[in-house]
């Protein structure tokens, strides 16, 4: 699941998980930047605003490597459906928007498992900002790109930074064949499209299994 803050992807992910669980599919959720290992460093760095684009990138890659080995590969091996709230594309988009070399960050994450399906919730920057402000979300330093010094105003900085991130995502859609969901539409409509995308994939796998058994 990919998309900028305020794209509503976390809501969509929760609804999808409910549906999959109800249908009897074991589900495992994993979230971007959540491993205990690098939390200390990320926290120190963020508190002191001491992270550069490179160390920001590398810390997130470390977090990802840790989660890949403990929270992604084992549930996959156990036959579960892993739902990742953000995946490597988040790094490609954010790090490139911060000026890190695009080729370098792609090669950096080449140890990752390629997802069976990657869905990008595309939302215009205005919709995203409106949603975040309506929820009275306090824009965080790095999420708003305040480290880049483009603007001292958090909302303005968020617009500039996430605008660049959106451009990077557009590039990724073609490069990695991401499935795009229009995240401006209603929650139920998005969920309908989302479930359709996922069910297509699950059906294909079911067919494969049947074929294997008959062989």
């Amino acid at each position: 699941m990919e998309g900028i803050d305020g794209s509503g992807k976390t809501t969509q992910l929760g609804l999808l998980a409910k549906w999959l669980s109800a249908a009897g599919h074991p589900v495992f959720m994993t979230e971007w930047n959540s491993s205990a290992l690098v939390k200390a460093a990320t926290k120190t760095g963020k508190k002191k605003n001491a992270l550069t684009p490179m160390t920001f990138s590398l810390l997130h890659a470390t977090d990802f490597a840790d989660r890949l080995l403990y929270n992604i590969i084992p549930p996959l091996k156990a036959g579960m459906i892993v739902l990742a709230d953000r995946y490597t594309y988040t790094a490609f988009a954010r790090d490139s928007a911060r000026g890190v070399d695009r080729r370098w960050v792609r090669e950096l994450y080449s140890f990752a498992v390629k997802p069976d399906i990657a869905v990008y919730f595309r939302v215009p920057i205005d919709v995203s900002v409106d949603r975040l402000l309506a929820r009275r979300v306090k824009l965080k330093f790095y999420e708003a790109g305040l480290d880049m010094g483009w603007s001292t105003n958090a909302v303005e900085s968020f617009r500039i930074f996430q605008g660049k991130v959106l451009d990077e995502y557009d590039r990724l859609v073609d490069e990695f064949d991401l499935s795009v969901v229009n995240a401006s539409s209603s929650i139920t409509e998005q969920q309908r499209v989302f479930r359709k995308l996922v069910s297509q994939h699950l059906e294909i796998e079911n067919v494969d299994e049947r074929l294997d058994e008959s062989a």
Partner: protein
Amino acid sequence: MSTNDSTSQPEDAEVGGNGRPGRYYSYGIPYLSIDDYPGKLIAIEGTDGVGRSTQIRLLREWLEVQGYGVVETGWTRSELMQPTIDLAKASNTLNKLTFVLLYATDFADRLEKEIIPALKAGFIVLSDRYIFTALARAGVRGVDRAWIRSLYGFGIAPHLVFYLRIDEKSLIRRVLQSRGMDYWESGMDLKLGDDIYESFRVYQKALLKEYTSMADEFGFRVLDARRKVEVIQDELRRQIAAFLAESDVPAAPMAVRAE
């Protein structure tokens, strides 16, 4: 190395020891230009127990007497990462990938905040260990060679790399004499066996092999570390003096040197 399309980013990147001295190894850090800086980067590499820090202390003294500004940097000393690395080591929660990535993060922090600013300000940067330490440790742990070279493609190729080489037997004795074996330096994470001495021996031997294999790739100047401290120091000074003489380091105030 796959190269994806990219817009305004440099296209002449090469990976794996092809970085010219003083330049980025590969893609580098696009937002940090390192054109025409006056400083010099000199790395002293080698395993534990080869006397790197003694040599660096003596080199610093010698360079400063001549009027050169010197900055020392080490491996895993960054303010950002030190607590995390210590914690991870203590709890043995590192796997080989996170191990490599934590060290790379630490290096990136030092490169951007210490090394590059010092080079731009005209210092001679003496690095106690450099990326080769990471490449050797990763190599022993079976991390993909092309991947880790690409990872460290943001690093700067030193102007000079001295490799203090030692044989396996002398190395083991020196480490035992100095600070003894520890979990990581014995490669116990590799599960080579319960015998810590045997694990240490196999691990250090593999490390030496990795260093040897990098000597040509990265143009190491190899020095025999079994010789006396003064003999090694003389050799280092001779080579560094020759290098500084033919490079355009802002001349040290030799005129005021008390002769």
